[in-house]
């Protein structure tokens, strides 16, 4: 009886250790894989990290999409209607990418302020806007209105 209990304790001990190790490893990896979202205003204000990847989102400024001579590299401006940053991307853009459309780009900020994206997402539903983009547009709009009321 006693040995059976001892064995069960060993089994439980092993399982707990294993689970704890897995959780510790998983959480550590989790922290390294978080990608934060910044609006163009926040990027211009210098809030975004310089050397880690993050996401930026907003509307593609009308008339800003320019194709490089190699045909696959594209530059465009992304704005929250307050500030704008330029995004560079090499590759095929998603189907729903177009001027005036809300997009989210994943990538890093270059020293000259250009955001080099490795992925550009446009949502599959034309009425749908990524919540982050909608929120940052609203925020920029609200602060814009506030300024307008203060100056006259």
């Amino acid at each position, binding site marked *: 009886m006693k040995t059976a209990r001892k064995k069960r304790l060993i089994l439980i001990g092993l399982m707990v250790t294993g689970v704890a190790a897995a959780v510790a490893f998983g959480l550590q990896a989790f922290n390294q894989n*978080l990608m934060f979202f910044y609006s163009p205003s926040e990027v211009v204000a210098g809030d975004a990290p310089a050397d880690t990847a993050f996401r930026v989102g907003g509307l593609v400024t009308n008339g800003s999409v320019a194709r490089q001579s190699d045909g696959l590299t594209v530059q465009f401006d992304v704005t929250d209607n307050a500030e704008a940053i330029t995004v560079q991307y090499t590759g095929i853009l998603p189907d729903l990418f177009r001027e005036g459309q809300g997009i989210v780009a994943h990538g890093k900020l270059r020293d000259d302020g250009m955001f080099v994206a490795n992925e550009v997402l446009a949502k599959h539903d034309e009425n749908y806007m990524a919540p982050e983009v909608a929120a940052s547009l609203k925020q920029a709009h609200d602060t814009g209105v506030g300024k307008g009321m203060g100056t006259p």
Partner: protein
Amino acid sequence: MTPELGQFALVLALCLALVQAVFPLIGSINRTPSWMALAQPLAWGQFVFLSLSFAALTYAFLTDDFSVLYVAQHGNTQLPIVYKISAVWGAHEGSLLLWVLILSGWMVAVASLARNLPPEMLARVLAVMGMISIGFLSFLLFTSNPFERLFPIPMEGGELNPLLQDFGLAIHPPMLYMGYVGLSVAFSFAIAALIGGKMDTAWARWSRPWTLIAWVFLTIGITLGSWWAYYELGWGGWWFWDPVENASFMPWLVATALVHSLAVTEKRGAFKRWTVLLALMGFSLSLLGTFLVRSGVLTSVHAFATDPARGLFILMFLCLVIGGSLVLYAWRAPSITPGGGFNMLSRETFLLGNNLLLIITTAFVLLGTLAPLLYDAMGWGKISVGFPWFTAMFVMFMPLMVVIMGAGPMTRWKNQDPKALLRSLSLPFAISVAAGLLVAMPFGTGSWSAGLAVGLSIWLLTTLLYGARKRFQNRSGISLIKDIAGRGSRSWYAMWIAHIGIAVFIIGVTFVTQFDIEKDIRMSPGQTYEMEGYTFRFDGVKAQTGPNYRTQFGTVRVFQDDREIAVLNPEKRTYTVQTNPMTEAGIDAGFLRDIYVSLGEPLGGGDWALRLYYKPFVRWIWLGGLLISLGGLLAASDPRYRSKVLARLRKPAIQPTLAAENHS
């Protein structure tokens, strides 16, 4: 008129559900056979009314009745008939109607196939399903009525999202819902057992085939979704760790654990409380999935409904279901007697390991899915959890899981002699290590991940083959067929096929992630490009017209050794109503590799941006999924779950209850 009838049928179904949730349950407690007997006709009544309601909505789509708001938003006169039908569940309201229809279908199945259940058990199971039905019917009627009218009546409808105008996606939601809702049967069995306070191997035997069928549907649904994403989204991915995919994957992981744990409960009477808890978790995660998809709280391509009232309703329902069932569990579980004991080295231990790993994986997927919500709610910033993290988590647990999966079936129940196990495992171990090393060497593939994956797959294969050889040693010819057809041993063959499916899946996943080639290039008509021994010739793009879309129809010819092996037609479609462009990939499918071409955008002068892919072994992913489903089906068809066999089981099962009741 028909839409009103449809809505009226929904109201009637809700009334029946209210009666079904209350009276059979009371009847089962104070032992009133006439009240208990209400459950079956009520279930049938709900099914009939919901079928009528569903038929009414389908009729509205087929007749282009744009006076119904939902039809006006998602139907269109030019839509081909198949997609008019699939448009019924193409968006929020209709898909919920399908949800409750399927729920009533499961109720009817339980009511008519489980006649041999003790009447109080059947009454309780159906009462719990009635409660779930109340929740979803009131959600449908009060927040998302599919029959709402629209005035003035538009001449033409909006349109079904073009992405959904596809056969794979027309059948993907029903399959997935069959699985989601099917888990409610396992849930209801668990709740009924908790109410009755009786839990024995007979319970596991009743619950197991239902759980297996639900799990099979879930597997098929997820496999279909993955296949659809691959050929339809146009960038060759087959899994994105998208919140909505995770929402279907978490119930699958828990259901997989449940299927294994039920085996232990049925065969050995052990793990009873754990099995019940898994059944509760499985359906709770299905509901959580519904909440995540339907409330639009997450950044996701699938979020087509953004309405806080709906989100709040499901959230409250979710809390009620999870909270209620956990309280019931905390109250009743201590009375469940522990089952058969087992030693450290036994099949039970391996199955426990399997369950533990599956649940940890589920917990991590849950963390990654909910973390963005949590961070946002706490004001810690807006985050997304990277694809690599999910993959890393999976890669961390999979190898251990596969090692267990190979050894488990070779081990005896209760107690295993370590030496005998080592003897039988040594040959498979040697073969798989050798195979893994060969593949990992520079003259193989040079990739350690590929080596590991091949090693693990070979480990699974060799242990399974070894097990088969042992089984066939004393059987031959007719007795072998009898063994497959007979009861009791079919589950072994089912396990065999499903585990082979896992081996196939691992090979597919690893090879496609390690060795796929992707190239974005600019091509002029007539230009060629070489990749992996294939020559791609771009023959230009022509404008054409389809039934409800215009298309840029590209032609790419693929040559191997100067022989033409495929003509691919990637397209860029623009649907006439929703003017979104959509990519249709051109795919040459093969057992060992796919060639995949999609059109980017026109770059002027007939030039196009093209995306070329070489995808080795990608079909094996879905082949694996099919084999797993096939295994599940075979297990569920085991004759030992047929009613006659269960009826015999029922007699000895009743005695202990009566004894227990006399005791109290």
